[in-house]
């Protein structure tokens, strides 16, 4: 991928981080840590030319599918879907409010009111990969070229159903379908709800487990290095005969100093002042330069004002 394209992805991801913090601060609850660890991966997947979709036709039958099995990180998916144009920016701020279609966890909506880009209900960990296998089989049987991507958390990989799915994907149908159209992506941020994964129930040797179950494993050493992510996804698409799992080593809360690698920020939304500090850090602006920056950047200034207004509410 050309350097200019990489730079574009990096700048998109930065904007997405700001929007994630903005949404969560408005909502007053939600999961920043895993949303921030996943956003670079999602950005590359959706805007690096890997996931195929038609912004004008969200239900294009040949589209690739994406299942967010770690459904609590749906704010990251909402901002991505907003960028595609499936949703308006203003609507994002209704997250988690009564009557909003922006549920706290992915909800595909009832027939007639389907949510473009949300392919299945998730939020109970462990279920997404099985759904993804079903979809990968379905498109195969229908003779479509679609691929299916599924993102899992590492804590989520303690769930038995993940390994039922892992065991079946390379073998289902007696291996007739060879699901090389299936790609699992694990956000390996090493933290779950209560604590670090290693202090709760370690997963290692993690890559070896997937390999033993018959998957092709690709590790991305730094899941925030856009170049490395892009390379990882490129090689994932080249794999034939077997499903692929991309294990991306990430930092939970990436981009915000006080959230990074801190289990406390799994499921707590920032308060307005914390939200504003987060945005400043994401944008890489020093405290002393902040007011000046805001004067020069009305779009960010508007968001900051909006969050300040929440303080008095």
């Amino acid at each position, binding site marked *: 991928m050309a350097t200019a394209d990489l730079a574009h992805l990096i700048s998109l991801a930065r904007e997405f981080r700001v929007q994630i913090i903005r949404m969560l601060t408005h909502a007053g609850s939600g999961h920043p840590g895993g949303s921030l660890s996943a956003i670079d991966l999602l950005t590359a997947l959706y805007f690096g030319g890997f996931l195929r979709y038609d912004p004008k036709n969200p239900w294009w039958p040949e589209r690739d599918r994406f299942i967010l099995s770690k459904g609590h990180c749906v704010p990251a998916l909402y901002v991505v879907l907003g960028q595609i144009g499936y949703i308006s920016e203003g609507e994002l701020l209704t997250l988690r*409010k009564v009557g909003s279609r*922006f549920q706290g*966890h992915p909800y595909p909506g009832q027939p007639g009111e389907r949510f473009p880009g949300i392919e299945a209900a998730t*939020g109970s960990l462990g279920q997404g990969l099985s759904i993804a296998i079903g979809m990968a089989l379905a498109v195969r049987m229908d003779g479509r070229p679609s691929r299916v991507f599924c993102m899992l958390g590492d804590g989520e990989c303690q769930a038995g159903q993940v390994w039922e799915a892992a065991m079946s994907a390379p073998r289902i149908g007696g291996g007739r379908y060879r699901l090389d159209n299936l790609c699992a992506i694990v956000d390996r941020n090493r933290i779950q709800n*209560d604590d670090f994964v290693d202090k709760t129930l370690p997963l290692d040797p993690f890559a070896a487990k997937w390999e033993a179950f018959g998957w092709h494993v690709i590790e991305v050493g730094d899941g925030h290095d856009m170049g490395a992510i892009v390379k990882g996804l490129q090689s994932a698409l080249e794999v034939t005969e077997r499903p692929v799992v991309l294990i991306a080593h990430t930092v939970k809360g990436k981009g915000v100093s006080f959230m990074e690698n801190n289990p406390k920020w799994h499921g707590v939304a920032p308060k307005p002042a914390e939200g504003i500090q987060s945005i400043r850090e994401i944008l890489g602006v020093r405290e002393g330069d902040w007011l000046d920056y805001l004067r020069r950047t009305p779009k960010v200034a508007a968001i900051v004002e909006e969050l300040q207004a929440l303080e008095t509410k």
Partner: protein
Amino acid sequence: MPAKATRVAFGEAILELAAKNKRIVVVNADLGKSTMTQKFAEVYPDRAFNVGVAEANLIGIGAGLALSGWIPFICTFACFVIGRFETIRLSISYSHANVKIVGTHTGLGIGEDGYSQMGMEDLTLARALPNLAIIQPADEVETKQAVAYAAEHDGPVYLRFTRQALEPVSPTGYTFQFGKGTVLREGTDVTILGTGGPLFNCLQAADRLAAEGIRAEVINISTLKPLDEELILRSGGKTGHVVTVEDHTIRGGLGGAVAELLSEARPVPLKRLGVQGFGESGDPRGLYAKHGLDPDGIARSVMKFLKI
């Protein structure tokens, strides 16, 4: 006494009980922070286990501990544990394992996280298992006593707790009695049977109804199984109208249990209040208002039911 979430009261209760009862064990599934059992894990590290995000394993390990003489409290969100119904059915229920299943984060009251995290059908499922006792306390005082009772109860128990703080509703000097409901307010025109989260709103609705000249009897049904049939039949027979109120689907929970009872033993007109469809995200108060579980909503439904 200030309002307190029953999950918080549970966390305090289990800590106190464990000091005396050395057979109590707590098993978590990566929701120790949320089920309020982290303090227990700090104080009694040898009797605390976290199995990670793995609820079926949680249930099985609980069963094994119980079948070998320990008293495990297995703790997670109600939807995730009762959702592994068939595992409970065999490993705990049919094995007659003395496991205390703790389900927190029940109903619309959890608010913003939305339906996927809400215990919404757990009572329906739990009721189907013959030997599983079900207790849903309505405030702090009752929770502490109910947890102490569950530890002594010989057999599996399902304890259902709230994420949100609950105002006290129990009378002063209250003593929890397993299988017994409590009349919180006497009345002659309609019986309101409430359980858990919305009970305080039932009492407030009774105030509003009183202003309209309707005397509502409000009863706390904290043991859902076995049901206090005698009390319900007596009160329903007296008032001639029964309303059930629960933060749970109207299919098969308290409303379902009461419908089964009344239709067989003494048909009395019944109105079930609760959640009709799926739950959803939103602030808890707003959700209670939208789904008619706030004081005004309950009072309105009662008036409509009485055709006033």
